[in-house]
């Protein structure tokens, strides 16, 4: 039986009990999405967009959607983990175990009126009409997104009404508790005109076993809305993490995505935004670290479909041992999208001879009067800087960490929120030998 066939079987078994199964539109969307996945299977490396990232492991290894009740059992013993994450950050915290909302672990904060952060499963039961326009279609993304569409039944539903501003970040925590769990999470972020908010996805590990996260996050920015999304991925080094972040932007809106990828054996991020109105702005910022034989891929697509749009795109990778990094950035400027201003940069720091980074800009510019700049670098630790630090008594390991940190600092500085910057720094430095001491020392001099 192929992987696709076993997913079809799992679907027949599980579909009737998924949240919202009784909704004809959803049942139909799920059925068609599954059909698509069965027809396409996991993307193969013959597909140009996947040629550097093989999902063969998903053909050979079995992952399955945990049984109902597994989440509740899994939630036991996670209090300490969640408390550790929340430390120093009151805000709104919503925890999902094996893809299901775990109210006992969550800590909702008082949100301004007009701001709601709910479990998608709950909204599918109580007010499905609020979900339908934002849920997405079977055709979206690559085939993993279709598999998500077939199985997705929970995740966060964030709704910010017109003009509502939520200052503190909204934190969503995703934990894979069951071994070999496949978690098809769907998050929907809906920002009405002029609304503002920041949503943080934490993908954390509780064990070192394999797991599959197949996450879809859809963002709808109405006129002049401002949405910041940050994903901090620190999954098990045996996990496979697939993420599709899909934004739509109306006139004058701003969308920022920060993808910080520090865990998982294989992480693929497809980040897409489309300017459906004039004067939109986007910032796609990314930082990853790979070592061992780990692999991180960022594929981005920015559709400048309307005039006066500004996009900024910066991805940085730190690659150690036999780690591999992939970046492909497509920028499409439609014929009438004049006065588009786009900048794309990707920089990679190789810490070993075996590490490898691939970068591919793909610019499709059909309009005149546009500014479009791109650049890619692959480099190593600056030996002169290393000597300078060592000549001041700083030992070699620390000096290397410091220079690695310095390379990352630019990416972290783009995260406007200081508490999130600090979190991201801690997560990165925890990966470097002796990095924790460096983190403490940097903290002290802030």
């Amino acid at each position, binding site marked *: 039986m192929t992987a696709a066939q076993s997913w079809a079987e799992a679907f027949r078994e599980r579909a009737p009990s998924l949240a919202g199964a009784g909704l004809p539109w959803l049942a139909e969307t799920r059925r068609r999405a599954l059909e698509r996945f069965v027809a396409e299977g996991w993307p193969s490396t013959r597909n140009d967009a996947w040629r550097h990232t093989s999902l063969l492991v998903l053909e050979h290894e079995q992952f399955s959607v945990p049984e109902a009740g597994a989440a509740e059992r899994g939630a036991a013993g996670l209090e300490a983990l969640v408390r550790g994450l929340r430390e120093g950050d009151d805000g709104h915290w919503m925890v999902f175990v094996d893809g299901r909302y775990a109210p006992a672990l969550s800590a909702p904060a008082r949100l301004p009126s007009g701001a709601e952060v709910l479990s998608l499963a709950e909204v599918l039961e109580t007010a499905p009409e609020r979900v339908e326009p934002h849920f997405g279609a079977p055709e979206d993304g690559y085939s993993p997104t279709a598999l998500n569409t077939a199985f997705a039944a929970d995740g966060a539903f964030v709704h910010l009404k017109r003009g509502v501003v939520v200052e503190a970040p909204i934190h969503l925590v995703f934990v894979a508790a069951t071994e070999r769990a496949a978690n098809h999470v769907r998050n929907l972020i809906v920002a009405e005109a002029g609304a503002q908010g920041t949503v943080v996805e934490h993908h954390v590990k509780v064990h070192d076993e394999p797991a599959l996260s197949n996450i879809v996050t859809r963002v709808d920015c109405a006129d002049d809305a401002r949405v910041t999304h940050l994903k901090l991925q620190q999954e098990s080094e045996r996990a496979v993490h697939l993420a599709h972040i899909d934004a739509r932007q109306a006139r004058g809106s701003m969308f920022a995505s920060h993808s910080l990828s520090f865990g998982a054996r294989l992480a693929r991020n497809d980040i897409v935004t489309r300017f459906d109105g004039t004067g939109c702005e986007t910032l796609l910022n990314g930082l990853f670290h790979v070592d061992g034989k780990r692999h991180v891929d960022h594929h981005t697509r920015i559709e400048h479909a309307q005039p006066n749009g500004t996009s900024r795109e910066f991805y940085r990778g730190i690659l150690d041992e036999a780690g591999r990094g992939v970046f492909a950035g497509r920028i499409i400027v439609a014929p009438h999208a004049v006065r588009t201003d786009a900048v794309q940069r990707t920089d990679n720091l190789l810490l070993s001879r075996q590490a490898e980074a691939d970068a591919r800009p793909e610019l499709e510019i059909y309009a005149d009067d546009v500014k479009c700049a791109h650049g890619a670098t692959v480099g190593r630790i600056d030996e002169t*800087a290393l*000597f300078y630090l*060592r*000549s001041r*008594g700083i030992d*070699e390991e*620390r000096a290397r960490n*410091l220079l690695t940190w*310095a390379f990352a600092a630019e990416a972290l500085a783009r995260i406007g929120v200081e508490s999130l910057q600090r979190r991201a720094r801690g997560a990165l430095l925890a990966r470097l030998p002796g990095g924790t001491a460096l983190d403490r020392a940097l903290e002290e001099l802030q």
Partner: protein
Amino acid sequence: MLEISQLKASVDGKRILRGLDLSVKAGEVHAIMGPNGSGKSTLAQVLAGRDSYTVEGGSIHWQGEDLLAMSTEDRARSGIFLAFQYPVEIPGVSNAYFLKAAVNAVRRHRGLPELDAMDFLAKVKAEMKAVGMKEEFLYRSVNEGFSGGEKKRNEVLQMALLEPKLAILDETDSGLDIDALRIVADGINRLRSPERAMIVITHYQRLLDYIVPDHVHVLAEGRIVRSGGRELALELEERGYSWIEREPAAVRPAEGA
């Protein structure tokens, strides 16, 4: 405290130092002068432990130890400080963090307690004032976007904080206007002491108007070809380097001197 004997060193396969001898005692200030390409900066880099330079022969004894067997960081911790001709910019690393890490690395080695953030900031701010640096330079990235003069002040600041036993100043005067030169020289002079030796590397005698050396050496083609007192620097200023290059053998100091 420092004994260099028949030092031979090369970079990228090119022999630069060809048997250099130099002896420096505590409290002394030695000036090393010489034309471009004579090996002045190579000497500085070899003393600090830059591994792109290959030592091919000779020895360096530092406080009774084999300096060439020590790592760059251990040399620094044991009291050798090189003020760089071209201080390195390190975007993303704050000067405050850099200075504190350096100070504490050296203090640990000397068996002193590490300074905490409060004590460190008090100390560094006092020293910054002395070299005429504004506090904002603490929170900027190391040397990034600093002017030539600001970079050199940052070097003198590091020297003051690390309290070395041997300071090597590599063309510290290059790129400085006369006011900056005076401030930097004052900073250096404040650090002169009977326990501390200095090697001042310079192309021009100008710096030696401010930092008066006990000994002056002329380096040419990788060897010290002439040594003398301060008057040697003045003679070089007047006559240039060519007269020495023309008659190196005649003025070469005796072996082992």
